[in-house]
């Protein structure tokens, strides 16, 4: 691929005490593309995302953003780079309203005072862009929203900012059919605008519908990162459940990660 990746993670290790959750993970996302990150429950997808957004410190490895090596020490660093994340558990404050949640940590102010009208207007426009019509008032507490509405607020919070990379951790898990279609359409739209988008999903139909690339995690190891058009449903499912599929994924003998990933990246398994 000629396009340089926007974010490139190399050799990421992450352990929680004795448990190694990520093993030497390489991961690259390209602007203008939707990269689907797939893997079984507990494969380490959310952990990888949290390492990227600076919530968890990494034990080894490095990040490059726009070709520059960067260190991400916290959510502010990530936001500063233009990385926005919709977390699986949404991370909303139940006791705050929709607008307050969307601007949390990055409130608009005029002088010392919060600029509520500006924030409310921007929130309204963003939600309208997501075609959200079901919330009664932008000033209602998030606690009173349905699961899908909460999810939409979390997504709106991520697309509100002029970000370069948007990561969505299972954004459609709680959504109805129409809302899911809308979110997928939004995901596509963001990528078409030139943003890099990472979509985590267990739904293969969604993955194949919107993604340009698929990255598969298996027990904390990145077993393949391939073009979506080069693989079949069945192959991806195999990668997720067994860590390998034909020439793709873990070698049968030993794990020689570095070479393997470089291969899958540059010569996506078209030849099989």
């Amino acid at each position: 691929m000629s396009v340089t990746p926007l974010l490139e993670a190399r050799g990421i290790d992450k352990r929680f005490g004795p448990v190694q959750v990520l093993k030497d993970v390489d991961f690259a996302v390209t602007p203008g593309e939707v990269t689907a990150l797939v893997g079984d429950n507990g494969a380490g997808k959310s952990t990888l995302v949290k390492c990227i957004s600076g919530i968890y410190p990494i034990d080894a490895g490095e990040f490059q953003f726009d070709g520059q090596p960067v260190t991400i020490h916290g959510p502010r660093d990530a936001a500063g780079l233009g990385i926005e994340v919709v977390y699986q558990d949404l991370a909303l404050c139940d006791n705050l309203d929709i607008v307050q949640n969307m601007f949390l940590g990055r409130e608009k102010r005029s002088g010392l005072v919060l600029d509520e009208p500006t924030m409310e207007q921007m929130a309204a426009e963003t939600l309208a862009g997501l075609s959200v019509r079901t919330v009664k008032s932008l000033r209602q507490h998030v606690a009173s929203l349905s699961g899908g509405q909460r999810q939409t607020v979390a997504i709106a919070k991520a697309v509100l900012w002029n970000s370069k990379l948007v990561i969505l951790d299972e954004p459609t898990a709680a959504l109805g059919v129409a809302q899911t279609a809308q979110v997928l359409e939004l995901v596509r739209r963001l990528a078409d605008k030139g943003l890099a988008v990472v979509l985590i999903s267990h739904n293969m139909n969604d993955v194949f519908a919107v993604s340009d690339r698929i990255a598969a995690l298996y027990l904390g190891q990145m077993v393949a990162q391939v073009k979506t058009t080069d693989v079949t449903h069945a192959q991806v499912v195999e990668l997720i459940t067994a860590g390998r599929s034909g020439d793709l994924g873990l070698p049968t003998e030993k794990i020689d990660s570095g070479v393997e990933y470089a291969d899958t990246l540059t010569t996506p398994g078209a030849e099989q």
Partner: protein
Amino acid sequence: MTTTAHHIEPVAVAPKPTVGSHVRDYLGRVRGGDLGALPAVLGLIVLCVFFAIMRPVFFSAGNFANLFTQGAAITIIAMGLIFVLLLGEIDLSAGFASGVCAAVLAQLMAEQGSPWYVAMLAAIATGVVIGLVLGFLVAKVGIPSFVVTLAGFLAFQGTVLLLIKGGTNVSIRDDVILAIANKNIVPWLGWILTVIGVAGYAVVVLLSRRRRVARGLVTEPFAVAIGRIAALAVILGIAVFVLNQERSRNVVVVSLKGVPIVVPIIAALLIIWTFVLRRTAYGRHVYAVGGNREAARRAGINVDRIRISVFVICSGMAAIGGIVAASRANSVDANTGGSNVLLYAVGAAVIGGTSLFGGKGRVLDALLGGAVIAVIDNGMGLMGLSSGQKFVFTGVVLLLAAGVDALSRRRAAATGTR
């Protein structure tokens, strides 16, 4: 601009609110478990009617003024406590922290002959340092606030004794400090402050309303805005009118009328802290950390700093409360800030509607709850009840308030509004 600016459509929201829909919304919230100030206001009315029937003198201007000076220190300490409670933490040491600060004030003036402003600043600085230490132990070391402040409760009790050199009673002679809880402002100044207060409130309400209308945002009906302003004007007007009546038994000897000086002090603290909580990013972050600490952390908020800061505010306000208490008692002794001060302050916050579970509360709650506590204390005093009976009754009221808090939370969880 936003990333979706190319796709702007008007958001379909509820139709323009009317007075009727406003009232319906409020009733809906109450039914959903968000009781707000309702229990405190209802309780206040019931208690006032009860005591007025039992002891008609309860409703005299003199007794009305007493309520303010009796409740002042508790209310001020409760205002600071609300910040700690908003995070779901507790400060059990706030009472004796106020005692320590009052002792610092008294001893500086008595032994060093310091002027009142130096002593006062030193007292407040003491409070700030106490808060820094408590906050550090809670946020950075990770000891539960209950334990840290329980230790503080004991240690500060001892510190008061050490500062006043055991059992003695350090009297306060400085006129400025004594005036805080014992003198009144001249009646005309009371009216001027009232007019300024109401006009200021009207400007804030109407200006922010206009700004919202200009942007085409959903706005509360004009009638509701005017109603709020009118309500404030009526309440303040009646209070100032009553306080401006002659309260002295013997006018020839001494005239006693006007708003007690503590009242504008409390009003100023109320306005400042309400502004901080509701209009600044800092206040927003306090609510966020209280509501969902992990979400706040992921939003890039420095959670530790917020946690330390609320203890600083709490102990700093306790210092101010201690100064007021010292002024009212004309002295500082081993009991300043002790006995029921802390429980009354926590009670005031909870009765006013601040949740012990964090995330919910307003500075105004301290005032409402403080009023309830002051009325109970004062009314039972008038009825000649013993201390024992007073303690039992206040304990029951505190339990009742905490029960209302817990039940409204359960109800809110059941109806999905929290």
